[in-house]
């Protein structure tokens, strides 16, 4: 099944930062830091409005790996993320993922990823390692 993947294969997925999504993540994580829920405080700190929890993007990675790859027999072994710019309500994120390593002997695939917003700004970037579970 690893043959379904090739070095430099790339994938894209779009995510909209809706109120429902943000409310759901806030409830799930319990992270109600004022920066994330209060526009006035966020503006006082120099942001244009409340800053959405960056770790919401990790949920998108989970969705992408679990649901959007050519096969579903996979598990995430490693994931890192560097937050570059703030994420705001109603942003549209484009997840761009590229395969940078395939290790057939152990069924491991390594990806680089970037989340880019509607203004073509890189919001975050990182690396994912998955193992095939077949």
């Amino acid at each position, binding site marked *: 099944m690893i043959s379904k993947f090739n070095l430099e294969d790339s994938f894209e997925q779009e995510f909209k930062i809706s109120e429902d999504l943000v409310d759901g993540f806030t409830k799930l994580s319990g992270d109600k830091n004022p920066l994330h829920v209060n526009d006035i405080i966020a503006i006082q700190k120099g942001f244009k409005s409340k800053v959405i929890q960056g770790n919401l993007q990790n949920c998108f990675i989970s969705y992408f790996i679990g649901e959007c790859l050519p096969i579903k027999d996979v598990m995430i*072994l490693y994931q890192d993320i560097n937050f570059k710019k703030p994420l705001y309500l109603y942003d549209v994120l484009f997840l761009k993922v590229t395969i940078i*390593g395939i*290790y057939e002997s152990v069924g491991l695939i390594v990806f680089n990823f970037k989340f880019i917003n509607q203004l073509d700004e890189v919001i975050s970037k990182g690396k994912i390692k998955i193992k095939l579970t077949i």
Partner: protein
Amino acid sequence: MKRQEIFTRVSSIFREVLEDDSLNINEKEGADDIDDWDSLTHIMLIVETEKEFKIKFISSEISNWNNIGDMITAIEDKL
């Protein structure tokens, strides 16, 4: 490449992957003998070894290894 040089480089890989600068391995040791050498770190040890020596293993080769000495022999065979 001499076996001793391979061993030295493999030792560095173990220290890096297992995040233990004081780790001293020997050829007779296997996964049961080294703390933190579990199924997940095993994968990373193989990956880093393939990258370090620019070689590729196949899964059946790896499954025959009983200890670090077997690993080093497999590397030797591919260089």
